[in-house]
């Protein structure tokens, strides 16, 4: 498994992404500049968080139209595992690879703390075997997931809500929702189930010395994908 970590002007979780993959998960990973048009030497993609293009216009809007996104679109079509975290999630939505959009947090505040999430189902590449509650950090201003009623029906019917914010005990409760997302949505999947966008940062929770390593369980889909996809 060779994972590409695309870098845009203003990406700032790119090193976390690369090192979590290389040093903690043990897969090959390399940076890819946003102008790259081919990702032929890669098997997966991790679009990192940050503030690409200063969040100008809309979060992720400019990055979503960068040349490298065409190559990522081709890989998504081919079924390769693709993860977008935080700004990476916003970019995937803006690029149309995931439905819906991420709006300003209901609180109007930048929210930087740990949250609890759990897999809403366990039958996708990105959620298989993920039982129980995960503790992961969030750090975002625009994480309120919205979509229209029709899309929401599809997401639910097709089990494409991957992760939801919950209490420490795993209860789906509005008080556990850090940003006002519809139905406590923390992460969603595309139709094929190979593209995951999520606001929490699994790449920041990959070592005991960080205080937690629940993020590794999410990232391990990259190693499972060798067999699964």
């Amino acid at each position, binding site marked *: 498994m060779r994972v590409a970590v695309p870098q845009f002007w203003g990406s700032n979780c790119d090193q976390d992404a690369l090192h979590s993959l290389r040093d903690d998960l043990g897969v090959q990973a390399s940076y890819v500049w946003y102008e790259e048009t081919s990702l032929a030497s890669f098997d997966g993609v991790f679009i990192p968080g940050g503030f690409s293009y200063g969040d100008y216009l809309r979060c992720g809007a400019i990055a979503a*139209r960068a040349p490298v996104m065409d190559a990522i679109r081709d890989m998504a079509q081919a079924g390769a595992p693709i993860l977008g975290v935080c700004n990476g999630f916003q970019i995937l939505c803006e690029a149309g690879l995931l439905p819906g*959009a991420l*709006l*300003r947090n209901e609180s*109007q505040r930048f929210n930087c703390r740990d949250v609890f999430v759990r897999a809403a189902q366990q039958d996708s590449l990105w959620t298989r075997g993920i039982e129980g509650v995960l503790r992961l950090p969030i750090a975002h201003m625009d994480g309120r997931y*919205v979509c229209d009623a029709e899309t929401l029906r599809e997401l639910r019917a097709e089990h494409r809500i991957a992760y939801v914010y919950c209490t420490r005990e795993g209860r789906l409760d509005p008080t556990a929702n850090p940003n*006002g997302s519809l139905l406590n949505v923390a992460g969603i999947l595309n139709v094929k189930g190979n593209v995951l966008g999520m606001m929490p940062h699994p790449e920041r929770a990959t070592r005991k010395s960080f205080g937690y390593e629940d993020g590794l369980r999410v990232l391990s889909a990259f190693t499972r994908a060798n067999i699964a996809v």
Partner: protein
Amino acid sequence: MPSVRVFVTLKPSLLDSAGRTVADALQKLGFDEVQGVRMGKLIVLDLDRFEESQVRSMCEKLLANPVIEDYRFEVDE
């Protein structure tokens, strides 16, 4: 040189949390006639020629996100 003013606003069905904060602030200043505030963006395009279909295409490809936003534009020839 034609100038086009593009107005981008959040769809009415979506909570505009920035607008709500501004509405609260106006009410706290005593403007009790304020019932609601919606925030949006004004984007001014300086063009060397104006074609409606081109500006529409700019809005749909980049300036507005149809999932969450509406847009309209005005032209000063």
